[in-house]
């Protein structure tokens, strides 16, 4: 069980950083938003939702972190980040659309580290 708990955040960190790298490459090459990039954002979103589900399951199981309010804030904000970034990036018709997606990828990775700091039960 704990190995699964660790695997999802680790996957998110790797996926987020890979997405950020790919999106920044697109920005460097002057590419606009395209379907493969959006699909990659969708994959990241699914992974984040899985992670939120795992944490909610822990909470409903009776476990509580010291900073419960902060954790709940993170649980709400985390799945919103890629969605907002996708919309905001799609509104842009230049290389800067993918740059917004790169930020979302980096934020997803940072959020996993922060979640672990807030509640060490969440393994990375």
């Amino acid at each position: 069980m704990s190995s699964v708990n660790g695997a999802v955040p680790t996957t998110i960190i790797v996926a987020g950083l890979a997405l950020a790298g790919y999106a920044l490459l697109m920005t460097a090459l002057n590419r606009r938003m395209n379907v493969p990039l959006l699909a990659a954002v969708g994959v990241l979103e699914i992974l984040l939702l899985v992670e939120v589900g795992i944490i909610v399951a822990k909470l409903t199981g009776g476990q509580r972190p010291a900073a419960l309010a902060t954790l709940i804030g993170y649980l709400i904000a985390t799945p919103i980040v890629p969605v907002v970034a996708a919309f905001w990036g799609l509104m842009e018709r230049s290389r800067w659309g993918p740059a917004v997606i790169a930020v979302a990828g980096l934020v997803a990775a940072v959020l996993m580290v922060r979640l672990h700091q807030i509640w060490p039960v969440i393994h990375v």
Partner: protein
Amino acid sequence: MSEPAASPGPAASPGPAASPGPAASPEPAASQPDSTRTGPGRLLVAVYGLFALSASARAGVQIATKFGHAPVAYVLSAFAGVVYILATVTLTLGSPTARRIAVLSCSVELAGVLAVGTWSLADPASFPDATVWSGYGSGYGFVPLVLPVFGLLWLRRWSRRARTRGTIVVSAEDTGEAAGGGIAHGEGGDHGMVSTG
């Protein structure tokens, strides 16, 4: 009317027109950023929005749950949050008034991160808990230090472009003498159109 318009036109256009023109036209040739929230501004607003959310949410939770623990840090976090919200909103709106407020909030932000950064290093006792600006934003990858600099650069570049555009409009309506400056600007845009079309 034509004289004051024509004299700042050629005086202002060679400098700013030469630098943002060639610098700006190759990248977004097809779609020139037409407001402070497009082009590089898209990224800027995204990062500002992120910090507006994280700084104010964090400050809100800290003030609500444990204000006595580090009052100075939490009040400063809340202030930083307000400044980030102001910068995000004004950069998104992009009107001349909004841009003026954006310049102000970016300046306050830069002053804040430098002042609080220095203060937090000189007197760590006042900061039992970190703010966004502690250690010059080291807890946030120094983004809080870099962000206002890029914000101010972007706002300056954009207001210059708006000013040169203003002269194009004037020159189009005015005599051919002033239009000479306008043609110089138009070149960059025309090249973009040719290459795309």
